[in-house]
């Protein structure tokens, strides 16, 4: 079995495509639940399908132990409060809202009565993490099932109490009503004094999306008021009595090792504690400002190693494959028909190389954690997409069992795949252990740029063989390092060879919203444009000729219609382009209009339209928000974002040097939502990114005749003579 630990150091590929089961599964004592939940009823749901275990997880709980393979649980308390527990984390995707909607919908209770407890390793069931757009397809469904089962149980309880046929009873607005006698009872009254546990027996019937009343609507962010008043406490806002502020001494370059150290000046400052443990050197002080001052007085010499810089990057990635790539990488490789035969029989051949630079997530809230020891037990509040993964990291760092570590995740200032790891959690915990007081570590922007991790850079070689009529017959695609997400083509091509080649990375790399799907879509959809021009066909017509998938065709056609694809240009500077695909269950097509000032090189994206279909829509307004936001974020990586590095140092690791999309960059944004209530809901946090780069690249070609094959496309504009 593969776990994340099987990967070479430094390489953190496609985490969300891994199935990493928990290392331990502890007994769960039902009495423990009621101790912290209070009386009421508790409904527990067990993972099935992909997460299903052989060990008869469908069996109802007997005795005092609950099943170990729990996906979610839900409690209805004596005051009628419904609390749902999930290990998922809120970072701005607004899943706290969409999951509350799911519970409200199936339990027939007002959304104000629903409370979500999320990402707390003590209170919530184990969860691999919040990534890969899995919350909506998995956790939303799971909570709907739990809530639906809870409603069913409440109906049964009322039927028993009244001695009537349960078919006469209906659940609505937090009450069970008897249609015969017109009497009704609130959920709260039904559960009073009970300590009842139920484990979901089997798949329960769910309300079809066509009949949704709470789900499927634009419910506003559930605790929005706390965010506009500054009341919400993010991880970086946490505070405990006696808490100190921690800072960690950073090496001058990646991989440098400490040779000499002098900390006596720092130790003289009032209230300052210095910790030196191997290569870890840190301080804790009563305020951030004193901690910074203390850190500045420390004298250290480091031994550095020469390292690869920007200009050598792409050559390096191709020449340094990781030997013995694991089964996970090769699982994405695909071979069909015979490339050699296709090449021999085709009329047109085209071969190109594309490149993608490292970029930073730059979440507006840098990493932060507050740690507190109580005897041998450690509690850490931190912003992470993997609270349980961070618990494992802490347990390993401090060589202690996981059941003595609790990680809590307050709703966090975004992550975009960039907060899978527990750096600040470990740093704060190490400082707190010596300080014997709670310590908070809150990275500076510069630290976040240098010591987090990046979206992988990559090189992609692509070649294709095509008949005169525009039928693609051969497709060969080699991705070096950037990743395997979205590597397969969705066009109908008889002969294919698709390979992902992991390389030794130069910078620390890891997950990123949509990850490699952005690079792979950029290349595939740009190259489709190149082929369309070679075949002298309209890019839309060319795509549809080679595409059978109905959902994707619909996205392209709906987008093209709304965009007005095919209309004539009104000025020489104008260009139109498209890019689309299938990612994380989303079918989408993005259309771009650009304007290029050939003399000054100024490039403007004037309009961006995305047609988006992700099955049954759970919350239209939040979906629109995700699609628009994803489009804007993707513009940064498409147009100008790139990490510059030299000899183990990040050269542009601050906002004055690293350009992010700002108000003035934002084009007219249009989103065409294609609702499919007949299909299961897919997540939508990532798919909206992947069409943007190719749509813009193709539009720039349309405007200027210049084909750009590297991301970012125009960090310095586009001058055309």
């Amino acid at each position: 079995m593969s776990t994340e630990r099987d990967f070479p150091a430094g390489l953190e590929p496609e985490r969300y495509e891994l199935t990493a089961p928990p290392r331990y599964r502890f007994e769960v004592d039902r009495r423990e639940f009621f101790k912290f939940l209070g009386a009421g009823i508790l409904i527990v749901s067990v993972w099935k399908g992909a997460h299903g275990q052989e060990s008869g997880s469908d069996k109802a709980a007997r005795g005092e132990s609950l099943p170990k393979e729990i996906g979610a649980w839900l409690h209805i308390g004596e005051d009628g409060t419904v609390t749902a527990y999930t290990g998922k984390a809120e970072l701005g995707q607004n899943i706290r809202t969409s999951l509350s909607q799911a519970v409200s919908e199936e339990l027939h209770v007002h959304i104000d009565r629903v409370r979500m407890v999320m990402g707390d390793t003590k209170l919530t069931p184990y969860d691999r993490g919040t990534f890969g757009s899995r919350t909506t397809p998995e956790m939303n469904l799971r909570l709907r099932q739990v809530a639906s089962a809870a409603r069913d149980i409440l109906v049964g309880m009322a039927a028993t109490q009244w001695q009537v046929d349960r078919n006469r009873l209906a659940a609505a607005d937090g009450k069970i009503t008897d249609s015969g006698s017109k009497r009704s009872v609130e959920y709260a009254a039904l559960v009073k004094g009970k300590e009842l546990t139920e484990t979901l027996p089997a798949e329960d019937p769910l309300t079809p999306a066509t009949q949704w009343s709470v789900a499927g609507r634009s419910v506003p962010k559930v605790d929005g008021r706390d965010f506009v008043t500054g009341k919400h406490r993010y991880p970086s806002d946490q505070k405990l009595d006696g808490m100190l502020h921690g800072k960690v001494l950073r090496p001058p370059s990646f991989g440098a090792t400490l040779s000499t150290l002098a900390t006596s000046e720092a130790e003289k400052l009032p209230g300052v504690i210095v910790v030196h443990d191997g290569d870890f050197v840190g301080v804790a002080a009563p305020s951030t400002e004193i901690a910074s001052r203390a850190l500045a007085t420390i004298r250290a010499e480091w031994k550095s190693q020469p390292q690869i810089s920007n200009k050598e990057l792409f050559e390096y990635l191709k020449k340094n494959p990781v030997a013995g790539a694991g089964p996970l990488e090769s699982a994405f490789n695909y071979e069909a028909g015979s490339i050699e035969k296709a090449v021999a029989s085709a009329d047109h051949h085209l071969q190109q190389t594309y490149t993608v630079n490292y970029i930073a997530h730059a979440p507006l809230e840098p990493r932060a954690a507050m740690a507190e020891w109580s005897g041998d037990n450690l509690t850490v509040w931190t912003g992470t997409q993997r609270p349980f993964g961070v618990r494992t990291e802490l347990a390993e760092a401090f060589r202690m069992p996981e059941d003595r570590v609790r990680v809590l995740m307050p709703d966090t200032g975004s992550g975009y795949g960039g907060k899978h790891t527990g750096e600040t959690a470990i740093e704060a915990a190490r400082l707190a252990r010596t300080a014997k007081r709670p310590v908070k570590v809150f990275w500076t922007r510069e630290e976040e740029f240098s010591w987090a991790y990046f979206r992988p850079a990559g090189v992609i070689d692509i070649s294709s063989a095509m008949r005169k009529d525009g039928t693609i017959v051969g497709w060969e695609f080699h991705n070096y390092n950037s990743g395997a997400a979205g590597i397969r083509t969705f066009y109908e091509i008889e002969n294919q060879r698709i390979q992902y080649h992991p390389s030794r990375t130069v910078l620390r790399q890891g997950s990123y919203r949509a990850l490699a799907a952005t690079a792979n879509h950029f290349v595939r959809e740009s190259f489709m444009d190149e082929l369309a021009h070679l075949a002298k066909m309209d890019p839309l017509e060319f795509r549809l000729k080679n595409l059978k998938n109905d959902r994707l065709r619909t996205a392209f056609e709906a987008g093209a219609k709304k965009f007005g694809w095919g209309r004539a240009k009104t000025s020489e500077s104008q260009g139109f382009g498209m890019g689309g695909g299938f990612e994380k269950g989303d079918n989408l097509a993005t259309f771009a209009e650009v304007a290029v000032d050939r003399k000054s090189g100024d490039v403007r994206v004037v309009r961006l339209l995305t047609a988006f279909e992700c099955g049954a829509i759970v919350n239209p307004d939040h979906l629109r928000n995700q699609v628009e936001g994803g489009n804007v974020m993707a513009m940064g990586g498409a147009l100008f974002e790139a990490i510059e590095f030299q000899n183990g140092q990040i050269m542009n690791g601050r906002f004055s040097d690293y350009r992010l999309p700002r108000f003035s960059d934002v084009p007219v944004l249009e989103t065409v939502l294609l609702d499919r209530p007949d299909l299961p809901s897919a997540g939508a946090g990532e798919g909206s990114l992947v069409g943007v780069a190719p749509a813009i690249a193709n539009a720039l070609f349309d405007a200027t005749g210049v084909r750009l094959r590297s991301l970012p496309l125009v960090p310095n504009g586009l001058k055309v003579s």
Partner: protein
Amino acid sequence: MATTRQLHINGLVYATDADPEASLLFVLRDHLDLTGTKYGCGEGQCGACTVLIDGKARRSCITRLGDVAQKQITTIEGLAKGDQLHPVQQAFLDEGAMQCAYCTSGMIMTAVSLVNAKADLTAAEISRSMEGNVCRCGTYTRIVAAIQKAARVMQESR
């Protein structure tokens, strides 16, 4: 040893013995526990730390504590009147103009200063004036809509 000085924040008087060279942002956050004002970059480039000083939007991360004694400071915590949200706060909620909302405090404070200065605002004017504020989640169009809405509401109630 640093002396104690008074700060006028949200209509209240706070005492602090922090170094006059310290940034206002960290005094607000670490010393006074007013954590609604956020750190984003420390160089005045992202706007997350915006507060009002004598009614004008200022980056608290690059404002020295010593420079703001005797001035009226307003933070996000001081904007609502009791349960009554400021029209800009309400408009951000109405327009769903946030995702992770970490930038929201700074966006709102910059916007308050903007709508106080000028009632009639076009989308282009708002965009230009808000250029120093970053929303990494990309909710810019919604923020523009929210500010326009707030400006309208405020104008009508004048």
